[in-house]
């Protein structure tokens, strides 16, 4: 048993995959909590999808994928932020139009006769193929994202608390939105190498959503719990992938979502048991005390 547990970690590619997942877990959890409170899950998912043409362009031009992803995400982030603020268009419509256009552009480029094979790697990542260089870039980006989150903390907190009036207190909702989308873009770039742009969102939003079910009162404990969940799910996914020979990224995403569903259902069951217990104890309290008309009929 101990051997089976330790065996995968002797492999360099598993170690690198885990390090990549740990980085993404730390960054994704801190950022994921803000994504939830800013109700940006849909925007984040769209951002991830819309970097697709950037990846294809990078693959075609032979430049590092992270640069292509950064370029694609930047275009999408700016487009969503700008069009989403136009009252006549609205955020939802702006996101839908921007990502459909960009994703379509990516497919157009990818299906061109000159495009290279291996498109599925761009979509689903290659967790077990993460290189040392990829890791160094991811680590650098992680430091930048985390530092920015610490510096922006008070602004993020104030805008999330009361967006409509935040400007009266010296917060800048537009800049905060742009900064959050930019950081989200950086986090997606961190994760896209390992998980691909279709699965990275599971690790960005899943652990934070799970932690929010358990911790509701303070932000920092929520972020810490989300990080623990993300790293544990990453390790679990790697075991699954190693022994069941399933795709790495999909295994991690699958376990992350399974844990979310488990915790959600557990919390719902707990709440329902508590409600039944309360209802029963009220019923007992009523039947033990004589009702207003109960005694006279007997």
């Amino acid at each position: 048993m101990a051997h089976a547990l330790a065996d995968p970690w002797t492999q360099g590619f598993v170690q690198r995959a885990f390090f990549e997942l740990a980085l993404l877990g730390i960054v994704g959890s801190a950022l994921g909590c803000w994504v939830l409170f800013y109700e940006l899950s849909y925007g984040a998912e769209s951002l991830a999808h819309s970097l697709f043409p950037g990846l294809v362009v990078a693959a075609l031009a032979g430049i590092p994928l992270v640069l292509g992803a950064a370029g694609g995400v930047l275009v999408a982030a700016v487009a969503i932020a700008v069009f989403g603020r136009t009252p006549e268009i609205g955020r939802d419509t702006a996101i839908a139009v921007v990502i459909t256009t960009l994703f379509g552009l990516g497919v157009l480029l990818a299906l061109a006769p000159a495009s290279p094979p291996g498109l599925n790697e761009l979509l689903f990542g290659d967790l077990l193929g993460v290189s040392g260089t990829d890791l160094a870039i991811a680590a650098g980006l992680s430091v930048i994202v985390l530092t920015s989150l610490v510096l922006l903390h008070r602004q993020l907190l104030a805008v999330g608390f009361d967006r409509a009036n935040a400007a009266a207190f010296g917060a800048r909702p537009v800049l905060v939105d742009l900064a959050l989308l930019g950081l989200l873009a950086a986090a997606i770039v961190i994760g896209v190498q390992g998980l691909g742009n279709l699965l990275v969102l599971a690790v960005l939003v899943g652990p934070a959503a799970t932690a929010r079910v358990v911790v509701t009162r303070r932000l920092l404990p929520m972020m810490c719990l989300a990080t623990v969940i993300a790293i544990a799910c990453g390790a679990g996914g790697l075991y699954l992938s190693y022994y069941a020979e399933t795709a790495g990224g999909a295994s991690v995403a699958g376990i992350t979502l399974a844990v979310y569903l488990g915790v959600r259902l557990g919390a719902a069951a707990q709440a329902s048991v508590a409600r039944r217990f309360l209802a029963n104890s009220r019923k007992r309290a009523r039947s033990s005390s004589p009702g207003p008309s109960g005694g006279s009929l007997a």
Partner: protein
Amino acid sequence: MTALLSVRGLASGYGSVPVLDGLSFELDPGERIGVLGPNGGGKTTLFKALLGILPLLAGQIDSPGRFGYVPQTERSRLDYPVSALDVALMGALSRIAWWRPLGRTERRNAQTALARVGLGDQSEEQFGELSGGQRQRVLVARALVQDGPVLLLDEPFTGVDQPSAELLDRLLDGLVAEGRGVLIATHDLEQARRWDRVLCLNRRQIAFGPPEQVLTRAVLEETYGGEIVTLPSGSGEQVGILPPHHH
């Protein structure tokens, strides 16, 4: 006496069409002005124009530039993970550089402000778990931390329990005694009658002056339109307004 705040010919609104037009009034140090008007009459628009959140479409505002602001009820979310102290500290946001961490001075100011609204012992409580009146008091504490010479309170007494309303009333006494000027949007005519001056709005300025001169039946009818009712009382008839409907 130099006015703290002076407004001449103000027009403001969302976009280029003014929601509010032709406002001229001034606020002196130590003065309490009640801002009266129906829902949608422009009270919140006036405050947002003064704060610089909404554009000034015409006219001129001479202000000290620093305000304490208590927005209408809370649009803030109750499931948001902040304590009463966190919210009060947001009042310090505009006074220090955005990247600088909060210092001991800011924390002490926020704690003092919470004590002043009677919540000194509840500073670590979750904001969303406080009662409606207590949450309103936390928002007042945040405005105190802003430490502006002019305070703008948007219907601070609406939906607030009696003890919180009394505490808020005493607090306003203290603030004007310090020489601050206070603008209070309200639906309570009786309360406004006790204040120094009243400003009646209905998308434009209907009247401005001492309540005994301004709060006549004609002015109130023009301000509130159909929402006005007549209440019989001992000293003759008294005018009131129907309770506001919030959407």
